[in-house]
Structure formats: C-alpha cells, structure tokens
C-alpha cells in the first residue's frame, strides 16, 4: 500500500471568466520514506495539488474531485475534525514564505508546542520540551533561548528551520514542502536542503517537494513529476529524467537553466534558451495536447489528439506523441 495515492485529481475554481481547471486529472503516489518532487512553472497547479491533499483550499471557490488516499483511507470521506487530526500530525506542510508563515505575535516555542499539544495531548511543559528538542533537530543554535524568541528576531533561514521544526514536531509520515527554499539565499537554500535530506534519512519521513527549481530537484528527490497546465507531462527517476528528458516541455525547462561556463565556452552571444509563448488560460477549453501551442515539435496530430501519459521506458512516463520509446534518446 502506498503512503499517499492520488488518482485523477481535479481541482477547479469558479471564476468570473469561467471554470479554471487548475489541476486536471492528476495521479501520483508516494511510498513511505520516499522523496517525490513536483516541478513546473508558476501557475501549473503544484501548490494547489499540495493544498488539496490536506483539504486546505477554500471551497468554494475551489472544487476538488478525485481520489486521495492516505494509508489506503479515502480522505474525501473524512470529517473536518479527522482532517485536522491529520494536518500537522501525520501529514505536515512547510511553505514558501518563512518570513510571513510564522505568526508574528507568538514566540517560536509557543507555535511549535501548539502543534505538539494539538496532536499528542501533551501538557504545556512537555510540549515546550518537545519544541526545544525539534529546534535542536533542525540545527538552531542555543534552542533554549530561541524557543522564547519572536519570529521577527530570527533570520529567514532560521525561520524556515523553525517552520521545519514545527512540521516535524509530531513525527509526520509525510512532509509536504512547498517551495521551501525559494525565498532564501543560495547558501541558506543548500543548508535547508541538506537539513531536509538528513531529516528524511533519520526519521524516514516521506517528502513531497514542490519546486520550480530543477537544481533543487536534482539535489533532493528520487522521483520527479513534471507538471504543465494542471497536468502531469512526465514522470521518472531523477537520474533518468536528467539524462533523458522525453517531453519537449521538460527539455525546454532544462535548456532554460543557466549552466556555469556556458557563455565563456566560445558561444559568447548565445542567449539562454527560453520556452516561447506562455502558459495557457486554463478557463478556456482546448483539444489535443496542452503544450502543443508552445511546442517546437508540434504537428497536426497534437492539436486534436491528447497524447495521454504513456510509459516510454521502464518507470519513465511522458505525455507526448513524439517522445522516443524505450531506446534512450541521444541528447547531444
């Protein structure tokens, strides 16, 4: 049994312009202790997906359909009270903005021990002890002092560590990390990723990492899922994906990453590759492949036939009519 299994997730928003299909028929799963990354550009539905799992999306205007199972249990049948027990307990989240994700009027310790008290029924004293423990775990120096500090007295990196401490306080089985390093300096990013990797090893927590940064994916995840316009366009092991990206969108994303030394190696004037066009308006109905309007390889068939997700090689799925099958494509 998978730890988390999502099948045919649909998240739609009622807007003035019509129904926005933010997530359209997404399926994925995570095993215990596994690290899965969801990659895609802004607005592709990554965060909406993660919020739907915990039912944290405001509904209405949102509408969630599909099957979300945690340890085999259908989450859509759970009451709000049961969901609350899950949130921050078995499944916890860390968010993109450490600066604004902590409540400014309560101390770090108060906010961490709130989670502990909610899920373990510990008294104030035991919860505070646990808060100090997790602050040690995430590598915050002098935790006995920091525990009584207000968020505004901590740096961005420290705040993100505190957020992680809060998320880990109740030993979750699944940690959803929504762009955990995006708002941080590069050196701090590396530290936080190291920390998450280390914690995963030590606590055997499965991590669902949501990011737009392929560098973070390569560093961190075991499996990667690439999303575009609310759909999964490719899924593979990290090594496979980086060695042989099969979907033109994934290839485009990789070409758009600057590489060290690229400019100096003779091609002085070569600009960074970009994917032409823009993300489609998800309130508009369309036929065929979502990526076709921006795809360099699009042909007639793409505009009227949805390619659907297909296993192109062992454990490597892509949704493209022209993605090479089995034989690895040589990408010179």
């Amino acid at each position, binding site marked *: 049994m998978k730890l988390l299994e999502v099948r045919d997730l649909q998240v739609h928003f009622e807007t003035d312009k019509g129904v926005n299909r933010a997530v359209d028929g997404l399926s994925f799963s995570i095993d215990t202790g596994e690290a899965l990354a969801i990659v895609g550009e802004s607005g592709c539905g990554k965060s909406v997906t993660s919020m739907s799992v915990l039912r944290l999306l405001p509904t209405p205007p949102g509408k969630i359909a599909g099957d979300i199972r945690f340890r085999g249990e259908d989450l859509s049948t759970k009451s709000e009270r049961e969901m609350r*027990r899950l949130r921050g307990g078995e499944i916890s989240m860390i968010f993109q903005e450490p600066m*604004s994700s902590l409540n*400014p009027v309560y101390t770090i310790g108060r906010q961490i021990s709130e989670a502990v008290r909610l899920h373990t029924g510990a008294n104030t004293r035991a919860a505070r002890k646990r808060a100090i423990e997790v602050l040690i775990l995430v590598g915050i120096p002098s935790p006995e002092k920091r525990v009584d500090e207000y968020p505004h007295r901590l740096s961005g990196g420290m705040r993100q560590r505190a957020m992680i401490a*809060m998320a880990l306080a109740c030993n979750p089985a699944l940690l959803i990390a929504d762009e955990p390093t995006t708002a941080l300096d590069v050196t701090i990013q590396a530290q936080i990723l190291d920390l998450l990797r280390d914690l995963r090893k030590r606590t055997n927590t499965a991590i669902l990492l949501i990011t737009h940064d392929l560098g973070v994916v390569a560093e961190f995840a075991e499996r990667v899922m690439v999303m575009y316009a609310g759909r999964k366009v490719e899924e593979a092991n990290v090594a496979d994906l980086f060695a042989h990206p099969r979907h033109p969108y994934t290839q485009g994303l990789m070409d758009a990453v600057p590489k060290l030394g690229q400019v100096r190696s003779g091609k002085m004037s070569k600009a960074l590759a970009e994917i032409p066009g823009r993300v489609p308006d998800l309130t508009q109905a369309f036929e065929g492949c979502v990526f076709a309007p921006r795809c360099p390889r699009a042909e007639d068939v793409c505009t009227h036939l949805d390619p659907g997700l297909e296993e192109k090689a062992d454990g490597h799925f892509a949704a493209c009519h022209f993605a090479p099958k089995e034989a690895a494509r040589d990408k010179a």
Partner: protein
Amino acid sequence: MGSYIFRRILATIPVVLFVMLFVFSLLYITPGDPAAILAGDQATQAEIEAIRIDLGLDRSFPVRFVEWSSGVLRGDFGVSIFTRLPVSTMIQQRVEPTLSLMVVTMVIAITIAVPLGVLAAWKHGSLIDRAIMLFAVLGFSVPVFVIGYVLAWTFALQLGWLPVQGYTPFSEGPWPWLRSLLLPSFTLATFYIAIIARITRATMLEILQQDYIRTARGKGASEQAVLFVHALRNASVPIVTVIGIGITLVISGAVVIESVFALPGLGRLIVDSILRRDYPVIQAVILIFSFVYVIINLLIDLSYTVIDPRIRY
C-alpha cells in the same frame, strides 16, 4: 519601555494645558453675560455690576486663568455661579451614573461587536455577513435618541422587562444598578458596535489572507483557534485604536442619552449648566471629559506593545 511611558505622559501635559486654555476662554468667546442671567430680568445695572465683581468677572483674562488653573491642579474647580456649591461636590454627585454608563456601554459594545466582526469576516460574502453589515449601517445612520425611544418603548413599555428611565446607584445592589443601565447602554452602544464590528471585519479579512493563518490551519488548529488565537490578536491594533477613538462618541452620546433616560449624570449637568451659563461647571466637566479621553488613549498606545511584540517604543 519605562522611559516611553514617562515621555508619553509628559506629552499629554501640553494637550491638557491647551484644553484648559480653550475651556477657560469659552467664557470670553461665547455670547451672554452670566452675571446678567444670575441677576434676573428685573435687576438694575448696578446689581449686575455687583454680581460681576463678586464672581471675579471684572479682572483680566491672564490673572483669572492663572488663578483658575492653579485651583484646578489642586482639584478645586471653583464655585458654581448658579447653585453656589463647590463644582467638585457637584461633579462627585454626578460622576457615578456617567462612569457606569460609559463602562457598561463599552463592555456591551466590545463583547458584541468583536465576535460579530470576526463572524462576518469568517463568513464573508454570506447572508450572515450581509446581515451584520446591514446592522452596522443602521447603527451608524439612525440617531441615538431614536434608537433610545424605540428600545424604551419595546423593552420597558411593551414588555416591561426594564425600567423606562432613572438611575439606581450601585450601592443599592449590582442587579438593580445594571437593570437601570441596560437600556441606555444598549442604545449608546449601537453605533459603537457598528464601528467596532466594521473595523474588526475589515482587519480580520486582511489577516485571514496571511500566510501564518494557512500555517495555523496546516498544523491542525481548529477554526476557533485560527480565528481567535491566531488572527484576532494580529487584528487587534486597529480594533483597539477604534475603540479609543470611539470614546469621544460615547462621551458625546452620553450627553444625549442621559437626557433621554433621565440619568442624573455629568451629561445632564453640562446641558443644564450651559443653559444657565454656569461657566465654572461647564469648564470642569469638559476638562474631565478631555482628561478621560487623553488617559484612555494613553492606555491604548501602551496596549499596542502588549498586543504586538514587534511594536517597541
């Protein structure tokens, strides 16, 4: 912090001095001669002149101001022109109903308005939200005395639950005291509830969009905890500010309400004194009201540091 409180108290001194100067000049800038009124229609010019000298009205402005203010600082507001009683005695007799009215009004207003505002923000766009906001608009726009008469007619005359008018001192028991204050306090609280509920809703709407609210829900906090522990405290600075500003409205409303419900308070005293041109009393009551306002706003400024640890002076 200590030095801030000290500086903040020092800063209120010029305010109070300015109010004193203004209040004192009322005697000179308003029409009508208290000596002539006191002397009555039949008095001769000589009699009026004698009264004027008796009251000290013949001396110069600076001399009388210094004399009056040094008295005020010692708690001596002079003698009423009309009753010939010390003003401080008259105020002591009248202060309890007004103070009771203000306190009960504030307690009622805050305990009703804040939860209403939170509810409206939480269910924003819903029927409940619209009903609360409609009530708020009504609370603003219907005059206090109209609300007063409607409430008195309903709850006192028709239903007979509460006394129509009059005041029962606290010394006769807390329940009769509270009964005598419920109608006037509710009446006075209506628009106060309206402004506090509106500002609570507006601030809460903004706060509920914040990332830390999502964090709170993400860790499994109940909706009550999200609203009242995580959101409301962050929304408190504007709410408390409006409560402080609203004190002026409560004070001016008290003047009207005391007449409607026949409460023997400072509001009635000042109305009567204005009609009698009893300047020492008018000056003293205005001064006391401004002092109350200054003190409450000082307390509110200080409360910010308790509410929000980021605010340090």
